[in-house]
């Protein structure tokens, strides 16, 4: 098989992800574009496993690793690790987005004020009291 095909596909997907992160204003769509970038990197890792047969050579194996375990196939393992990281990232990211939506009723990243405490008039009229209900500010 010609491994240049999945490599080029991965590169194009990464470019699309960068474009989406920079173009989109909705925070959820930004997260979707980040998923595209992570998948592009995963695809390149798996393809490198096929084409380069990457393995640890000439490296002293760690004390916690089983001897003789540094066989080729590391790309797939790293792809699995990246999938786990992506799941954690999207969980925390969506928690932040939903909490921000509950406070400001907006998911537009351009309107996030980094220098204010959420009490400015106009946007932050509503806020949450201790019981999770919105009160007029």
């Amino acid at each position, binding site marked *: 098989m010609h491994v240049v095909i999945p490599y080029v596909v991965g590169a194009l997907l990464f470019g699309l992800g960068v474009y989406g992160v920079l173009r989109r204003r909705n925070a959820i769509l930004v997260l979707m*574009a980040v998923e595209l970038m992570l998948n592009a990197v995963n695809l390149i890792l798996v393809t490198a496993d096929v084409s380069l047969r990457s393995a640890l050579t000439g490296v002293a194996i760690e004390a916690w690793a089983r001897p003789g375990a540094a066989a080729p196939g590391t790309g797939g393992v790293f792809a699995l690790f990246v*999938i786990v990281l992506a799941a954690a990232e999207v*969980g925390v990211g969506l928690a932040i987005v939903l909490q921000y939506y509950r406070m400001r009723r907006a998911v537009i990243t351009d309107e996030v004020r980094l220098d204010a405490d959420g009490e400015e008039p106009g946007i932050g009229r509503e806020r949450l*009291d201790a019981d999770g209900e919105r009160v007029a500010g």
Partner: protein
Amino acid sequence: MTVADVLLLALGALAVGSGALVVTSSHLVRAGLYLVVSLGAIAGLYLVLGAELVAWVQILVYVGAVVVLLLFAVMLTRAPIGPSAGLDRPAFPAVLIGGGAGLGLAVLFADAFRWVRYPEPEPGTAERVGEQIFGAWVLPFEVLSILLLSALVGAIVLSRPDIGARRSTPEQPDPDQANPDPATAGGEVKA
């Protein structure tokens, strides 16, 4: 052109095409569904490349969990059914940087790997991946479990206003409650 090449080309075109629709669609829900198509095509690419376990984990975790979570977030933020206005910034810098990164990397890969045939990989079974993970990569695997636990706790703290958003309630100035014990905080929650 072997069968594997044809499959790679078709699935790659599907992944890139639906990925382009993800970042250009003006319907929020449709963007999530195009993401399903793109991730499924990438799982097919993994199968052709011989990474069977990664393909099924991709289907389970991404298509089954991450996209469902994203669609739930779209629903919870009251996204409109039809096309939404004002989803995009001006296109010029994004096209410049994204297109530059994508096409530059593509040219780099095409120049590095050329049109060279590589031997077909043997199917990667779960046994081989398991030997890798629990042989050479045990410590990163365990660190990842700690990361998942901390992400879980962080998401819960972020989304519970009774323990996360103390600073937005100035009418209850109670410094003792700034970092409440989880047991007592759980007792305060009204059902």
